[in-house]
């Protein structure tokens, strides 16, 4: 914080704005986690922190270090990429585990193992994975 005195005022305001957005949304998300009634409601709350909570604080950090060191500092984006990739994995595993445990308990509030037939009729598609253009080498990952 000592060398922050020579920061231009627009940068300070921008950093403060993004910091407060990020921290505020994370706080609201954790408050929802504490406050909401059922597990499946609560699973939505931390995604506030992992979407704009993280994005806000990363943006603030990028602006701060870029202005301080007078060059583009982007390594914080790695944290963003990491969070984007890992959040679905943890949340999907966790919600599947919760669904499994609720089904094992015969909880009436969760969808049964086989969804009713009327929903799956729509999905009976003419579309099979068609192997078109297998030889194009554009855009392979």
């Amino acid at each position, binding site marked *: 914080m000592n060398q922050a005195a020579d920061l231009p005022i627009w940068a300070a305001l921008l950093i403060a704005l993004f910091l407060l957005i990020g921290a505020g949304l994370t706080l609201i998300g954790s408050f929802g986690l504490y406050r909401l009634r059922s597990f499946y409601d609560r699973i939505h709350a931390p995604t506030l922190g992992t979407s704009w909570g993280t994005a806000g604080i990363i943006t603030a950090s990028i602006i701060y270090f870029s202005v301080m060191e007078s060059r583009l500092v982007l390594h914080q984006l790695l944290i963003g990429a990491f969070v984007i990739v890992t959040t679905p994995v943890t949340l999907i595993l966790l919600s599947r585990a919760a669904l499994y445990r609720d089904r094992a308990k015969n909880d009436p509030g969760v969808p049964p193992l086989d*969804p009713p037939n009327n929903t799956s009729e729509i999905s009976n598609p003419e579309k099979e994975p068609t192997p078109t253009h297998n030889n194009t080498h554009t855009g392979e990952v």
Partner: protein
Amino acid sequence: MSKLFPYPLLVVSLVVTWLLLAGFSLNQFLLGSITAIVAAWGFAALGPAKPRLRRWDLLLKLFAIVFYDIVRSNIAVASIILHGGKRIGKSNFMAIPLDLRDPTGLACLAIIITSTPGTAWIDYNSARSVLILHIFDLVDEDAWLNLIKNRYEYLLREIFE
């Protein structure tokens, strides 16, 4: 060429990660490139399926749409939580039949749905290709079906299938 660089995108992203962590210099670039190419050989030995990207241009459109939706649903969910959990609809499960089969496309859909506050990916039955979502504020089931199918799934199928 494709023997030497089996996964070009993987190599590029590993080199970029390396440079971001270690700092930009020629030495680090060489070291990072060697590591990334060796890592890609190792990855090729596992033989995972190669995802095919058909439409690069639509990727940008998808990013823009998802960015906008994430901002919007952040505001929506935050205001519901601040009002003590009172909302117009109620939270419920919802089954969505999917036509998207490509694993990479499904992974992208999972990322989109999970990172958007207000929707949670609960379960996907790959045999019946039915996705079970949990919606935080479910008012109109058809609107959500329309959103997932026409807004995201359509684009993902254009890009990956």
